[in-house]
């Protein structure tokens, strides 16, 4: 009986639909398992201090476990250790900690892989033209948070471009890259960044975007100069509006991740731990539990595994 058990969910923000859905998923699973769930979130992506304070609050609150999507994967380790020392089960969701075993378990998407898939798809779709591609890179923020770097570098790797230092974007010198600009992960930023890069080079034909809102903004910029049909836009997330945008041809392909699964798995694990102290296991062969990533597109490319928009819609999260 899980009565009296409580758990915490700490997300990077609760303004990003990704985390909103994750929270809804966790709430539903918690209600089912009879667990009380408290949710916390940073004010902005990268708001690390609020997450530390949240962990402390969970300890004070006597929670059994914490589900955490860390804003700063290595800085948070101290607070996580404190929680584990206090007897809480800490599970990293979506974003692995650094080092990964600082958490009791990790249920996550492989963000580099997510980027790699759309990179491979874009290269395969262009075929020989990939050699002459004009690529715009729409990243997250000048502070270069890790998700953004992993997806960006994954995309370039998948596309076949040398990424130089894989821990930062913008140091590449491949002439096919027109430039990097930042979007704050929203439509407005996506549009402005796209416009800026189009002013540099109006012949851009491949656009990497950090997430689907940024992709939607980029599309508006292209539409306003009448080039929306001639450019490949790729993105990451697989939210329902994003998948719908793939269906509508706004986005060519997107890498879908599964926050609801992460949340549900996390709650299950905490319930089990509270009941008899068992800890969750990793996906065989990996040092975390991979909740998977799938490329969603209706124009499958040869050699790149993908699912259809129909399938994507069935799995989408918001």
């Amino acid at each position, binding site marked *: 009986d899980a009565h009296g058990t409580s758990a915490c969910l700490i997300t990077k923000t609760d303004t990003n639909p990704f985390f909103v859905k994750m929270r809804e998923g966790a709430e539903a699973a918690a209600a089912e398992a009879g667990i009380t769930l408290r949710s916390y979130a940073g004010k902005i992506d990268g708001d690390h201090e609020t997450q530390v304070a949240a962990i402390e609050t969970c300890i004070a609150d006597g929670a059994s476990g914490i589900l955490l999507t860390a804003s700063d994967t290595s800085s948070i380790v101290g607070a996580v250790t404190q929680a584990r020392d206090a007897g809480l089960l800490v599970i990293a969701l979506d974003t692995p900690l650094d080092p990964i075993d600082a958490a009791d378990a990790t249920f996550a998407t492989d963000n580099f892989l997510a980027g790699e898939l759309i990179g491979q798809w874009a290269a395969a779709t262009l075929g020989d033209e990939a050699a002459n591609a004009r690529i715009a890179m729409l990243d997250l923020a000048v502070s270069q948070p890790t998700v953004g770097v992993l997806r960006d570098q994954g995309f370039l790797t998948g596309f076949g471009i040398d990424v130089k230092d894989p821990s930062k974007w*913008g140091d590449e010198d491949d002439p096919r890259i027109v*430039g990097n600009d930042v979007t704050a992960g929203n*439509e407005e930023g996506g549009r402005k960044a796209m416009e800026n890069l189009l*002013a540099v080079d109006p012949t851009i034909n491949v656009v990497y975007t950090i997430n689907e809102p940024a992709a939607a903004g980029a*599309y508006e910029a292209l539409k306003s100069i009448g080039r929306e049909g001639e450019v490949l836009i790729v993105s990451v997330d697989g939210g329902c509006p994003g998948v719908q945008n793939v269906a509508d041809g706004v986005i060519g392909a997107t890498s879908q991740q599964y926050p609801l699964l992460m949340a549900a798995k996390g709650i299950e694990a905490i319930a089990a731990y509270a009941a008899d102290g068992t800890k969750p296991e990793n996906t065989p062969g990996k040092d975390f539990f991979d909740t998977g990533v799938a490329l969603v597109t209706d124009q499958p490319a040869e050699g790149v595994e993908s699912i259809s928009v129909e399938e994507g819609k069935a799995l989408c999260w918001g």
Partner: protein
Amino acid sequence: MSDKTDDYEAVVQASRGEAVADFSKARASALDRVQHALHVNPALVPLVVLLGSIITFGLLLGTKFFSPFALTLILQQVQIVGIVAAAQSLVILTAGIDLSVGAIAVISSVIMGQFTFRYGVPVEISVAIGLLAGTAIGCVNGWLVAVMKLPPFIVTLGMWQIVLAANFLYSANETIRSQEIETEAPLLQFLGTTFKIGADADGRGGATFTYGVIFMVLVVVFLAYALRHTAWGRHVYATGDDPEAAQLSGVNVKRTLISVYGVAGLICAFAGWALIGRIGSVSPTSGQLLNIESITAVVIGGISLFGGRGSIMGTFFGALIVGVFTLGLRLLGADAQWTYLLIGVLIIAAVAVDQWIRKVAA
């Protein structure tokens, strides 16, 4: 020889027609004329800076920058900030500040979208409700400032957090997609409607305008008129200059303040509408930096944060200066981080130049 019976005041009794104090009219040099022009029209300095930077980037970048396409692109990029900064100018002219402008814009756009899509309210009415909501929030700000006499910084800091949180709670962070709006409620995107002048046969290049850009210009012109040519405008300046003096000399300071914050809220709500036009969709996460960006435009435009001095045209030029620099630096190849840094330098430099020109001219 002096004694207290001396009726010395009689000396001046006769000379009633004479001048008491007069300014020397000599040296009406070119410098004088410049100074006078600056006093009468404080927006001249930012205009000079704007033209200077356009010319500089034009020389450095050639037609890449100096094309109808790039120049009108800047207008499109600054339209939201420009509209919000017009609202911000009003508030700052009264010696206030409004940190909630961005939050008001966003919640208004969310209300327009959610009323249309969640509740099925006709889109015209939803837009009206959104505009009303923005105005209402502005009026609450104004009431707290004018009647409760709380400092504007605090009132709008609190309101910012309240409105933003309410926005996320209400919208459940859901985006309404561009394609849905286009088919079901195109009026929401009305201010995004584009028209081109001088494009090529395929409709590419050339000057591109949107109704949002036109709207921004109209707001600025309208406010410039209202501030300069109506009693309300004079009262706004007087309130910002010295609220106590304004009250004593017959201005209803409370009403003026509430109207200013209310109008600012309305303009921000329009900015929210224009935002839908610009990004196509209704997104509750937009507009988070609008407060800082609008204040930056106002200050670069030469309006004093202490109230009562400056002109709304200056704000318009201030917004354009930031736009010109941002695009210009990107086209010159500065990366995002460097651009961010250089805009910081620009902010300080623009104000320093402004001070310097005024000092030299004075």
